[in-house]
């Protein structure tokens, strides 16, 4: 028994560094990911997607969505950093999991990939709705597009979509050349939610309807208002991917060749693998995650930060911004980082110049208004985490002895004083000793 407990202690000692290798501020990439499937065969039919995740160092835990032992947290600690829900037909999760606990999971800054499909359950629709995504209410509806479909498809429900969001942060620097194959359900974005955005949109001729029955009323979703895949980045930088197609991640579509109707270009492989891989890099914070050092400022020619500035001081401001590459922090390069010198409203707003090594700096003159100011860096870019930094600094007016001393305009007055004084001195002799 003694031995056992000792060995347990030893093992846990070895495990300790492993456990601490999970989600943290300094190492924002997710490590432990729970994968919920409504059928274990998805594990093999979507194996390429899972294999790429594993090869990038993720620890995937596959569970059936109705597993009665499902739990995201134990003793108040989250067991996972990310969640993949590939269970479109699940009506109820097993264990303690429900849509509220998934919302809490995202609220705690953790990430989610949610994939619906035709006949998605109310549960999945509900989770998507929390993220500002409305799936088509008609459960038999699919996205149909008679203009941009894959030529191999007789139903025109296998969409060859190429309207991708233009963001290097979300989809990587390499352009996705081949169209992305999609077969699934359409969704639209809630216009009041400005955190969610379309990553893959349908073409203007697309619509959402049941392909095997005649339309009796106009479809709810048409044209480019249809989103096929959307992402949401919450205010706490938690990231969510919502896809209307589970097949998009499947080995079959990863490996499938694609030729878009009406286009002479034939691709050996669809863009799905690249799309899904790049998107998963984004959602699990391997890209587009920024970190800023503290805001540094001082007077020109000095190095120490003053406790207070005087109006009209010249100051230099700098901040270090780094981007997480999945393994290490790399310098972030951009030309649109701005600083505000702020008191109720910005008095100065300047774009920072970068030295390409992660340092951003600028210099400006303190306004001639005194009060308590703030340096504010509020940086948001499509696909990147938002930075919001501020630092308070008071600004005082001139002291009485800091004004200009010898004003040229006053020379006649000075002259009058001193000549009078000299005259008095001379006169005092004349008056007293004249004979």
């Amino acid at each position, binding site marked *: 028994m003694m031995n056992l407990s000792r060995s347990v202690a030893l093992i846990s000692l070895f495990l300790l560094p492993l456990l601490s290798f999970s989600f943290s501020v300094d190492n924002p990439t997710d490590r432990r990911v729970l994968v919920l499937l409504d059928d274990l*065969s998805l594990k093999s039919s979507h194996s390429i997607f899972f294999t790429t995740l594993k090869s990038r160092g993720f620890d995937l835990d596959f569970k059936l969505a109705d597993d009665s032992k499902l739990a995201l947290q134990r003793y108040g600690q989250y067991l996972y950093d990310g969640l993949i829900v590939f269970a479109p037909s699940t009506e109820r999760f097993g264990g303690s999991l429900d849509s509220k606990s998934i919302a809490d999971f995202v609220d705690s800054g953790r990430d989610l990939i949610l994939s619906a*499909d035709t006949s998605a359950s109310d549960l999945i629709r509900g989770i998507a709705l929390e993220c500002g995504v409305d799936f088509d209410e008609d459960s038999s509806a699919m996205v149909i597009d*008679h203009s941009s479909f894959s030529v191999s498809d*007789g139903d025109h429900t296998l969409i060859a979509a190429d309207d991708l969001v233009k963001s290097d942060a979300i989809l990587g620097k390499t352009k996705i050349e081949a169209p992305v194959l999609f077969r699934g359900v359409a969704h639209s974005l809630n216009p009041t939610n400005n955190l969610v955005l379309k990553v893959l949109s349908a073409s203007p001729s697309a619509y959402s309807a049941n392909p095997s029955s005649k339309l009796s009323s106009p*479809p709810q979703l048409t044209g480019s208002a249809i989103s096929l895949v959307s992402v949401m980045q919450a205010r706490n930088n938690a990231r969510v991917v919502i896809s209307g197609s589970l097949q998009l991640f499947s*080995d079959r579509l990863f490996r499938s060749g694609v030729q878009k109707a009406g286009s002479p270009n034939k691709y050996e492989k669809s863009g799905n693998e690249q799309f899904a891989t790049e998107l998963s890099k984004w959602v699990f914070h391997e890209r587009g995650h920024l970190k800023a050092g503290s805001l540094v400022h001082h007077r020109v020619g000095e190095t120490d930060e003053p406790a207070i500035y005087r109006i009209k001081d010249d100051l230099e401001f700098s901040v270090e911004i780094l981007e997480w590459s999945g393994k290490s922090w790399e310098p972030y390069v951009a030309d649109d980082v701005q600083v505000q010198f702020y008191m109720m409203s910005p008095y100065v707003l300047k774009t920072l110049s970068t030295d390409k090594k992660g340092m951003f700096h600028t210099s400006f003159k303190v306004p001639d208004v005194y009060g308590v100011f703030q340096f504010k860096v509020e940086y948001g870019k499509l696909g990147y985490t938002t930075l919001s930094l501020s630092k308070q600094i008071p600004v005082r007016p001139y002291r009485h002895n800091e004004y200009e001393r010898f004003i040229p305009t006053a*020379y006649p007055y000075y002259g009058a004083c001193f000549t009078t004084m000299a005259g008095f001195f001379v006169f*005092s002799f004349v008056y007293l000793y004249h*004979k």
Partner: protein
Amino acid sequence: MMARCLARFLVSLLALAICNAASVSHPISDSHRSAALDVFVPLDGSYKSLEEAYEALKSLEILGIDKKSDLSSGTCENVVKVLASPSSALKDVFYALSVNGILKCKTGEDVPKDIVSKLQAGAKDAKLLLDFYYSIRGLVLVKEQFSGTDLTLGDAEAIFRSVKALSQSDGRWRYSSNNAESSTFAAGLAFETLAGVISLAPSEIDQSLIQTVKTGILKLFDSIQKYDDGTFYFDGSEGPISTTASVIRGLTSFAASESTGLNLPGDKIVGLAKFFLGVGIPGDAKDFFNQIDALACLEDNRFSVPLILSLPSTVISLTKKEPLKVKVSTVLGSKAPALSVKLAEALNSKGSSVINNQELKFDADSATYFLDSFPKNFDVGKYTFVFEILLDESANEKGYITEAQTKVPIAATGAIGIENAEIAVLDSDVGSIESQKKLDLTKDGVVSLSANHLQKLRLSFQLTTPLGLVFKPHQAFLKLKHESQVEHIFLVKTYGKKAELVLDFLGLVEKLYYLSGKYEIQLTIGDASMENSLLSNIGHIELDLPERPEKAPLPPLHPTDPYSRYGPKSEISHIFRVPEKLPAKQLSLIFLGLIVLPFIAFLIGLTRLGVNIKSFPSSVGAATSALLFHGGIGAVLLLYVLFWLKLDLFTTLKALSLLGVFLLFVGHRTLSNLAAASNKLKSA
């Protein structure tokens, strides 16, 4: 739990099958070969274990990809090491021999004696099914690879009986005698083991024993699972792919080892083949191996070889006059024997038959069967084609089997004629035409209309199929898009020969949110059978609608453009207070000069007046106090200058008070001296 899992698997696979309009299976093709190279990627030139190496090499061998030379050195080293070491586990020995069978690392007469005796001992002492499996199959491999050894099992029949003892009444097997749990996967292993025992046996095994195994096999087939599209598989805790592959491997070896032959239901064998082909290309190496290996077993076995009917394309274009092509091949894509393919029936979407009993022509060069002429009444639309394969008598020896009927959904597409497209604005009450325009929908028009809420908009066109029949498209939408991005969709419905949409604006004002102004008109016509689906911007209409009443609903919000949400703001720089305007420095200097002038005039005046200081005291005491007095005054004046230049008020006042006291004292002395001197003068 099991049943639920299964139901779910079924549902999802069915969903896949339904979505995947063609539930047509395709034999293994080049896409499998290129995928294999991705799936079986060795780490630094070799595989993690011999088991993985075997699976990779076997799959690549079946697919006809030669990668042996790249892999042989590292893997062979492992094989030789395992075979040389007396302490290797049975499992490792088995996989080493399996790899050796492919790579031929060690061949010839040089039989590894210890290995053989180890395997033989293993077979004799085995209690577990897996031990039997590894040792017996190991011996079979030794027999295949090394010639000239006597490998016969001494007590073959006893071993056969002890393996058989592990079987269950439902055809499944247990892994060990004290474990009651039985599995279908184990049954596959057991068949392979028994096949090995039969081939190693020095004399014939008792036929009655073999017969009981055969009935067991038929029992096992009772537990087979089925999908609606005629796909069969075995399910088990190892997953359907592994389990089914194991059973097929076992059956193939068993059928190969004994002479009487197995009589298995043909439709189920075809169903099993369809199951593996329906899996697609697995991304997982294990599944990939199981799929390919099982298909290879189906390709070459002694019970029945399934033939697969596949279509390169399930879409027939009537405009291109392409023939309908059908290929028949074995599961691995090799050539089928002489046979003929018949289109038994072609049903249209209403269920009535369009084509009956038509034999397809054969093109020997491309090995395809094709149907190049369609009957006159064959129009665009969705069809279900039912094919039948008729094997020639001569080809039947090898036991080829096919599906009785293969149903394939076929979409026939064609160019739809669009005629008489016009758009008009009508006066509501009389119905008289206000303005009417002809449209060419293939081009983006520039129609410009205007209407008020008392008028109507009418759009009409005719769609005809290549046969001249009325065509009702699935998608016929008119979209009105206001400048403020608010969109409205209307369905264009087909009445009789004409597709027509009449928009009565009076009834629509509320739906249009009382938004007057310019609306773009966009027409979308599309259908799965329509090759010339179109999205046409017809032009625009200027609507003049009444004012919005207070309580009318507001138009919905539109999502903001994500690109404009972020991005740099325009820079702000502070505007400093302008300093007061001061006169030029020269002007100040001129005035300074002017100020100094009176002083100079004063000095000149003094000299003109002839002033003197003759009454300066001459006595030493008085002169000293006078000098000190004037020095004091000078010091006070100097203090003022210093005050101006740098001193502050406190220092100045301090110094001034000291100087003041001093001045008071010496001033009094000087003045009293002067008074005394003048008194002396007066009195004199």
